[in-house]
């Protein structure tokens, strides 16, 4: 299989425009004849479903939450980047493009990233017009801040809940379309399989989470916008329900999974407080703008009141190691360094790992409070401080926060071309679920940007382009059969009936397969443990062997242990209750079962990528200073894995990456 | 069936009707109190005020009709909302703590009917007393009979008797509580709010409720304390009705 990225050629700044100019279109009166299935209702899915509906397509949108407004995009705190250059500080589309490619450690596709930067400005216009209440200056114009170490102020924000506000914008657009009848919404619905017919993605198998009913929905194109797979690590900043089942099932049906090992561990999260911990909460990266990260120089000070540790006994390790960037080094660098100092036994806080080492570092605002006053700090971070206090019971105005890195985002995902279409025709993948824009590491405030760019601007064109190219597909819904019968004089009633029977057979076959899986998980021979028990175990393994730093030995051990755990899962998982009712244990079991397979692929990918890049850090490949050392000669490609039926032997396909505009260089934040 | 939305279809519309009629009723209670305060100026002044009222039948009857209308609107909208609200939660909580609800708000559905009953009693006592009791003892209270053309004495002598004072005091307290929540609620319902002045809404509600409560309580207190006494003077002017 040759991976064709379908990138347009020519000057990079003209590619998207050119591509649109030559794409196929669907005429307005024909659009309602096409059914598009959108899975996920976050920024990518919600914006995509709304816009496709607005264009006149018949859209069915699915989410597992009770309302599309709850998708986990909602949790993004910091902001959204856009190359508006409102601050006159030298920003431009090119610079955002450049920063993103560089930030991704030269493992992303230039054309995609440029398009993303280009569309960033439209996103802000769109969001403001929808009524997203971005922060403003006293003159009434939009405010910006510098974020995640960017050297320009290009981040737009809404009081530490930018994600929720942008999602509410997309959600309101979606609800408008639901009211208009173009979008049908299916909340509390899990996607348990993808239906491929004649080589094209044509439908999904759903489980109604209230009644347990299995159904199929057929359409002309399928969009997966289901977010990332960070919950493989169990403790992550993802929502409890975030899962990889739709993408993993698509992978098992033939979609390639690209760069699964690229995961981002966010440096500023609240550490776990005990073994009951169910998730980790991120504290916005913006905190590092004014907070100073340190640990005690002497391990015996670990339990001492941090306010009583004199300045000379404090190790401001980021400031010392990276004088130029200090506390604002990129996420992966900050995370890794936190891990190193804790490995060295300098960690603080109550989270203690299996080796007896404390896993936490201080994030201290005392000097910022002294310099700027409590009021300014309160204005900037008030809600974050409140959140911290609520969770830990400590007041960050008085005593330093304790933070530790946690899994936050997965850059890997289903492989897509420039049109966001996977190797399966008609299967589009958007937002965090695809692999495309962030390379090996994502910059802060870029996830919202990508989700919305994909949803509002890319999919509406590329899905249309696909439908315009294929023109007529075999009718797989009753409605489509009927329409064909009315339209086509050569299509007889008998043919139509035959087609309907065929559809039913196709549908039954898929439902039967899903049902078998459900029955299997419900009836493990020795039911002992809850699905979450396995998820937690898997998470511990992944943090240990496939987390912030990875080694050949560790990954090899993971590849022995994960299959064992998977075997134990199928043998001993306990799923009480029935299938024909709301059954949260069953929902979770099916998700965990898929994580147990995906985890193995992640480790396999991490093992094969014998270099360090971005969020993927192999201990064998580091500079003398402990920085990630890429191997461009051998690994400047996208690793896209094909499911072969045997989890032990996925097939690797390579999409070479070429850099015409940004020359790969060694990142240095010294 | 879809139809054109009217104000009274909606909960807000009904609530606004309740607020607007409440404003009329509030206006009346203020006017009523200020008229009655003349009792402190002596029997001549008080009875002269009563006589004057009879000389402006248009005003008197206009006000009575407006009040009747306001009462009907106030009560019917209250009833409809009460019914709707009671039905909005069929399964009740086993445990539920009200954090913000004050006593006045909680008892609106009680103080309302109490006020209605008191009003009927009050009308039977001082407005229709002559017709209802003639020369007989009012409410069977020994020695308390109706004096035509002397509302001053009818009032003052009534407050010398506990069976009149007790319902009156209860009625006035219910009025005060009802008004406290009602006035504040009226601002909220009619959308009169501004962060700069919002605190004044509650202040005004407290002030008006207190004023009306204390003002109305001053009469029985003054009578019972012997500050105001029945008059021996005789007056002659046509009856009110």
């Amino acid at each position: 299989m040759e991976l064709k990225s379908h990138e347009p050629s020519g000057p990079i700044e003209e590619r998207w425009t050119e591509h649109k100019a030559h794409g196929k279109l669907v005429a307005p009166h024909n659009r309602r004849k096409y059914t598009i299935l959108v899975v996920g209702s976050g920024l990518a899915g919600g914006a995509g479903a709304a816009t496709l509906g607005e264009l006149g397509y018949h859209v069915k949108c699915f989410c597992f939450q009770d309302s599309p407004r709850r998708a986990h995009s909602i949790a993004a705190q910091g902001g959204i980047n856009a190359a508006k250059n409102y601050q006159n500080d030298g920003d431009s589309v090119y610079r955002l493009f450049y920063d993103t490619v560089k930030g991704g450690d030269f493992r992303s596709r230039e054309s995609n990233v440029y398009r993303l930067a280009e569309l960033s400005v439209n996103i802000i216009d769109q969001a403001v017009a929808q009524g997203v209440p971005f922060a403003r200056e006293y003159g009434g114009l939009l405010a910006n801040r510098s974020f995640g170490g960017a050297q320009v102020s290009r981040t737009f924000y809404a009081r530490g809940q930018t994600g929720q506000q942008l999602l509410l914008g997309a959600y309101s657009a979606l609800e408008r379309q639901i009211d208009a009848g173009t979008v049908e919404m299916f909340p509390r619905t899990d996607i348990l399989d993808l239906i491929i017919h004649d080589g094209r993605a044509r439908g999904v198998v759903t489980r109604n989470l209230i009644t347990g009913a299995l159904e199929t929905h057929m359409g002309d194109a399928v969009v997966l916008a289901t977010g990332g797979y960070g919950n493989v690590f169990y403790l992550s900043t993802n929502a409890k329900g975030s899962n990889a089942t739709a993408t993993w099932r698509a992978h098992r049906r033939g979609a390639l999974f690209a760069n699964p090992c690229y995961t981002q561990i966010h440096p500023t999260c609240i550490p776990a407080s005990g073994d009951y911990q169910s998730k980790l909460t991120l504290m916005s990266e913006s905190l590092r703008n004014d907070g100073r990260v340190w640990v005690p120089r002497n391990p015996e000070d670990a339990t001492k009141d941090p306010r009583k540790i004199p300045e000379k006994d404090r190790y401001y390790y980021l400031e010392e190691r990276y004088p130029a960037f200090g506390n604002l080094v990129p996420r992966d660098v900050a995370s890794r360094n936190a891990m190193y100092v804790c490995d060295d036994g300098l960690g603080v806080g109550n989270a203690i790992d299996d080796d007896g080492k404390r896993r936490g570092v201080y994030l201290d605002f005392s000097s910022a409070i002294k310099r700027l006053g409590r009021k300014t700090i309160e204005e900037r971070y008030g809600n974050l401080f409140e959140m911290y206090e609520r969770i830990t019971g400590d007041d960050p105005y008085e005593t330093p926060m304790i933070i530790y890195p946690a899994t936050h985002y997965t850059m890997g995902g289903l492989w897509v071309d420039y049109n966001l279409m996977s190797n399966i025709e008609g299967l589009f993948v958007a937002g965090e679920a695809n692999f495309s824009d962030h390379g090996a590491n994502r910059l802060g405030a870029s996830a919202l940007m990508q989700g919305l760019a994909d949803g509002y601007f890319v999919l509406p064109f590329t899905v249309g382009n696909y439908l315009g190219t294929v023109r007529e597909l075999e009718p797989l819904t009753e409605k489509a059969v009927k329409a064909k019968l009315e339209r086509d004089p050569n299509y007889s009633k008998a043919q139509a009936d035959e087609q309907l029977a065929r559809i039913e057979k196709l549908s039954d076959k898929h439902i039967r397969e899903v049902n078998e899986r459900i029955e299997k998980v419900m009836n493990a021979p020795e039911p002992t443990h809850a699905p979450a028990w396995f998820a937690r175990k898997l998470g511990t393994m992944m943090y240990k062997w496939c987390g912030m730093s990875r080694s050949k030995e560790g990954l090899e051990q993971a590849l022995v242990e994960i299959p064992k755990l998977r075997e134990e899962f199928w043998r001993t998982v306990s799923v009480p209750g029935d299938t024909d009712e709301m059954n949260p244990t069953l929902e979770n079991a099916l998700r965990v079962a898929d994580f147990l397979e995906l985890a193995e692929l992640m480790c396999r990918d991490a093992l094969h990528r014998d270099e360090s890049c971005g969020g993927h850090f192999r201990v064998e490949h580091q500079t003398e200073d402990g920085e990630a050392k890429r191997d461009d000669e051998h690994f400047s490609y996208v690793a896209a894995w094909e499911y072969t039926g045997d989890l032990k032997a996925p097939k690797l396909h390579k999409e070479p990456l070429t850099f015409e505009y940004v020359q790969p260089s060694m990142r240095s934040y010294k | 069936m879809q139809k054109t939305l009217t104000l009274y279809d909606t909960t807000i519309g009904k609530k606004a009707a309740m607020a607007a009629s409440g404003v009329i009723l509030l206006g009346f209670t203020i006017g009523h109190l200020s008229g009655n305060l003349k009792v402190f100026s002596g029997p001549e002044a008080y009875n002269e005020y009563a006589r004057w009222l009879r000389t402006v039948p248009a005003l008197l009857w206009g006000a009575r009709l407006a009040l009747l209308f306001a009462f009907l609107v106030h009560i019917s909208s209250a009833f409809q909302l009460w019914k709707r609200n009671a039905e909005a939660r069929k399964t009740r909580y086993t445990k539920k703590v009200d954090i913000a609800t004050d006593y006045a708000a909680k008892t609106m559905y009680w103080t309302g009917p109490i006020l209605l009953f008191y009003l009927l009693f009050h009308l039977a006592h001082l407005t229709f007393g002559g017709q209802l009791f003639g020369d007989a003892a009012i409410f069977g209270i020994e020695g308390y009979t109706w004096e035509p053309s002397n509302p001053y004495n009818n009032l003052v002598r009534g407050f010398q008797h506990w069976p009149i004072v007790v319902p009156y005091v209860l009625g006035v307290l219910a009025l005060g509580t009802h008004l406290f929540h009602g006035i504040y609620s009226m601002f909220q319902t009619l959308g009169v709010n501004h962060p700069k002045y919002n605190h004044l809404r509650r202040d005004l509600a407290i002030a008006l409720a207190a004023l009306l409560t204390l003002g109305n309580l001053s009469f029985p207190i003054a009578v019972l304390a012997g500050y105001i006494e029945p008059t021996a003077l005789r007056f002659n002017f046509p009856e009110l009705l």
Partner: protein
Amino acid sequence: MAETQTLTLHVWRQKNANDAGRFETYKAEANEHMSFLELLDTVNAKLIEEGKPAIAFDHDCREGICGMCSLVINGYAHGPRERTTACQLHLREIFKLGWKEIWVEPWRANALPMVRDLVVDRSALDRIVQAGGYISIRTGSAPEANQMPVPKDVADRAMDAATCIGCGACVAACPNASASLFTAAKIAHLGLLPQGQAERMTRVRKMVAQMDAEGFGGCTNHGECEKACPKGISIDFIARMNRDFLKAMAAARDDVKTP
């Protein structure tokens, strides 16, 4: 050392909307740093190991922003701590209050019908938004973002309203099961901004009509909603909705239909 206690939980269990429903009692080992939902997790883990159906409760982000969690804890929507969702309620708060026995109930309102155990159907809130909780702007047709300045205080107030997470605690806490605060917050968010002016008078009428059609009670200005709201949204927005609504009903030249 973290403080631990054994708590007695009386949890509402109801198989589905047709089932009668009852409290079932569980003992749970509580740690002061646990969130309330993590306490339920531990109960569930035990139930599952014993082969009994787990307690169904809505939850997702567990960081107080998705609005999914929805528990009435000892009579308080989202529990006793102000401005805190159930997922962010940590047990040290419960310990402080000295509660040893806790009743856990779902949101109760006819307009939010029972699904199972502690899970209710909040789609009525979505339908209120569908009725008009948006600014009709076609993707791609937006003007340059900085073309229209929005005074900072207006933007801030719109943001105050927009912080609503749609959890429904206002409905749960209201003595009348009214959705006024939710609806008012949505109306105020869009109605305050210059972008939202074009549809302001239509929006308020349609959304109020939908709110009523869903079977929520009316507002009696008790203020329970404001206290229960995990985002502390002010009932001033309800007054604003009322004003806008009365104005719209009086002045608008066109009619809107009942849903």
